[in-house]
C-alpha cells in the first residue's frame, strides 16, 4: 500500500462525492442544494488538482486536465451564486439555482471521468 495513492484516491473520490451531494435534488429548488457542500466541493477539488501537479505520465496529464475542468465549472457556479445573491440581489431564485446546479453537474461529469481514469489505472496495474 502506498500512502500517496491513498491520499490521491481519497481526494479524487471525495471531490466527486461532495459534488454529487450538492448536485442531487430538484434542479431549481435552493432547499435541495446546500451552499456549504458547494464550498467543500470547491476546496477539495482544488486540493485534488494540486495533487495531480507534476505527474509526467500521459494518464497524469489527463487527470490534471479533467480536474482543471471541474475547477473551472465550480468556480463558475460560485460566481453565478455570488452574482445572484450579492450583485443582482435576487437571492437564490429558481433561475439562479438552476444555473449553479447545472454548472456543478458539469463539474461532476469531469469528476466522474477522473474516477473512471483512476479505476482503470488501478485495474491495469497488475501488482
Amino acid at each position, binding site marked *: 500500500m502506498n500512502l500517496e495513492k491513498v491520499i490521491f484516491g481519497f481526494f479524487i473520490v471525495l471531490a466527486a462525492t461532495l459534488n454529487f451531494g450538492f448536485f442531487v435534488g430538484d434542479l431549481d429548488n435552493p432547499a435541495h442544494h446546500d*451552499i*456549504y457542500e458547494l*464550498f467543500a466541493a470547491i*476546496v477539495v477539488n*482544488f*486540493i485534488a488538482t*494540486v*495533487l495531480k*501537479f*507534476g*505527474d*509526467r505520465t500521459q494518464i497524469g496529464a489527463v487527470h490534471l486536465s479533467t480536474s482543471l475542468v471541474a475547477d473551472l465549472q465550480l468556480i463558475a457556479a*460560485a460566481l453565478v*451564486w*455570488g452574482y445572484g*445573491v*450579492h450583485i443582482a440581489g435576487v437571492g437564490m431564485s429558481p433561475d439562479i439555482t438552476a444555473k449553479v446546479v447545472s454548472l456543478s453537474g458539469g463539474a461532476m461529469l469531469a469528476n466522474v471521468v477522473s474516477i473512471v481514469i483512476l479505476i482503470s489505472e488501478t485495474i491495469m496495474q497488475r501488482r
Partner: protein
Amino acid sequence: MNRNTHLSTLFLAMRRLRAPLITLIVIYGISVLGLSIIPGADGQPMSFFHAFYFISYTATTIGFGEIPGTFSEPQRLWVLICIYLAVVGWAYTLGALFSLLQDGTFREAVSAERFGRAVRRLHEPFYLVCGYGETGRRVCRALDQMGLRSVVLETAPQRVGEVDLHNYLADIPVLRADASHPDQLRQAGLGSPHCQGVLALTNDDRANLAVAISARLLAPQIPALCRAESAEVAANMASFGTRHIINPYEKFADYLAQALHAPNAYHLLNWLTGPPGTCVERHRDPPRGKWIVCGYGDFGRVLVDAFDQEDVPVTIIDRDPAEPGEHDRHRRVRGDGTGAAVLERANIDQAAGIVASTGDDMDNLSIVMTARELNPDLFVILRMNHFTNHELFEAFAADATVVPSQIIANECLAVLTTPLLERFLEEMRQRDDAWAGRLLERLTGRFGWMVPSVWSVRLTERDAPALHTRLQRDAPTITLGELLRSPHDRNDPLDAEVLYLCREGSVHVTAPAPTLPVCLGDELLLVGRRSARAALALTLENIHSLAYVLTGAELPGGLIWERIARWRQSGR
C-alpha cells in the same frame, strides 16, 4: 536534456510546490468556512462571498479593517487565528517558491526552455556554432558583421556569459550544453529548415567528431564544418562523408608547401583570404635551404611531411624524439630548443629557416629569440597557441605566425560565405605559378594590397531579380563588362573583377574576359572593393539601375510615369 526532459523538470518543480499550495488552500478553506459560520454583530453569519472577500485581503496582509460590516467578538477571535494561519501559509509557499527559483537544475531547465523557444522563433537563416572559444568567437563576430545569425552551444559557463558581453548586432541565442549530445544539437536547431550549416569548433576532437556524426545523420543536406587536430579523427570524419574537415596544422602545412614551390599562388591566396580590413605585405618567400623544426607534435609532424614533399631537408628538435624508424632521413636532436647549445647542435648557423611548433607559447618565443641571435637571417615560423599572447608575437615580428584559431575561422568563413572561392583556389593549384603571378600583379595593381572584398553572386530570380526579368523579357546578350559598370555613372567601370564563373553543366571559366556573355543560373566569384559589391547588388536588383547601366536610358519610376512613358512610346 531534450524538450521533454525540460518539461518534466518543470513538472518536477510543480510537484515540489504541491505541499505549500495544498497548505494554502486548506488555510483559506478553514478561514472562509469559519467566517461563514460564526454569527456577526446582527446575529447573521457572513455569506461565503463576503467571507472570501475579507479573507482575501486579510491573508495577503492588505488589511482594510472590518469590512463590509463591524465584526462581533467571536468573529474577531476567529479572524485573529486566520491572520496567523495565513501568514504562515504564505511564508511557507513563498519560501518554497524562492528556493525553487534558486535551484540550479530548475534554472537550467528554464534557460534551456527559453533558448529552445528563441531558436524555434528564428525565421531567418542561421549557423549553428558548437564551441565558443577563440575560433568560435571570431566566426560569430564575422558572421554577425555580415548580417548572418548564429546559435551557440558551449560547455563552459563563463564563456556562455561572454556571448552577452561581446555586444553583437543581433541577439545570439546561447546555451550551456554539451554539443556532443544529439538532442542538444536538435534543441539548438539542427534539422530546422533555417539552419544553414553546423560548425564544430570545440577544442575537443571527440566532441567535434560527435557533432559531425550527428550532423551527417540528422541533417545530411547542410554543410558541416568540423575542426580536427589529429589525423585519426580527421580520417574518421572523412570516412562518413563530412564535407569540410579543417585541420589548422595541415592547412598551414599546405600553405607552406605552396609558398615553397609556388610563391605567387601563395601570395594570391593570402591576399584573397586575409582578414577583412588588413593589408597584406608582400613578405619574403620561405627559402629552400635546411630547416629546423622544434617540437614534433601534431603540428610538427604535419610540417615535416610537407617539407618532405618539397624535398627540403629537416632537422627535428624534440625533448623526446620518436625512435628513428621509417623517418630516418631526418636528423634528430634531443633537447628543448630554448637553449643555445641544442640549437647549435642542430647546426643553426647553416639553417635557412626554423619552425617553433611546440604547444607552449613562451617556449616558442624563447626558441626563436635564441635562434635569431645565433643566425639573424633565419626565416622564422612561429606557432601561437593562445590569442592572449598576441602582443608578444606581434612585437617579435616573425616571418609567419601560425594562429590555429585564425586559420580555422578564416577557412570556415570562406567556405560558408563564398563557396566558389574554394573551387577557384583548387583551380589555381592546378595552374603554374607564372599565371598566378600575372593575376596577382594585375589585381594588386588595380585594388592595392589591402585585403579586398571577395563574394559570390548567383544570377537567379531570387538573387538577381532585375537581371532575370531583363534576360527573360527580351533575351539580349549581356556581357560581364557591361554589367560591371557603376550605376551612378555608366562610363565608370566598377571596382570589381570576376575571378571565376561557374555555369550549369559543369562549365567553368577562370578569370573570364569582360566580353563573355552571362546566362541565367551563372555563379560568379568576384573580387573588388566593398563599395563595388553594394553597387553591383543594386544593379542586379533594381530594374531602373540595370537599364541605366546597360543602355544609359533613365527608366521612369512610379506607376503613373511608367504608364505615361508606355503611352508615349505607343503613340510615336
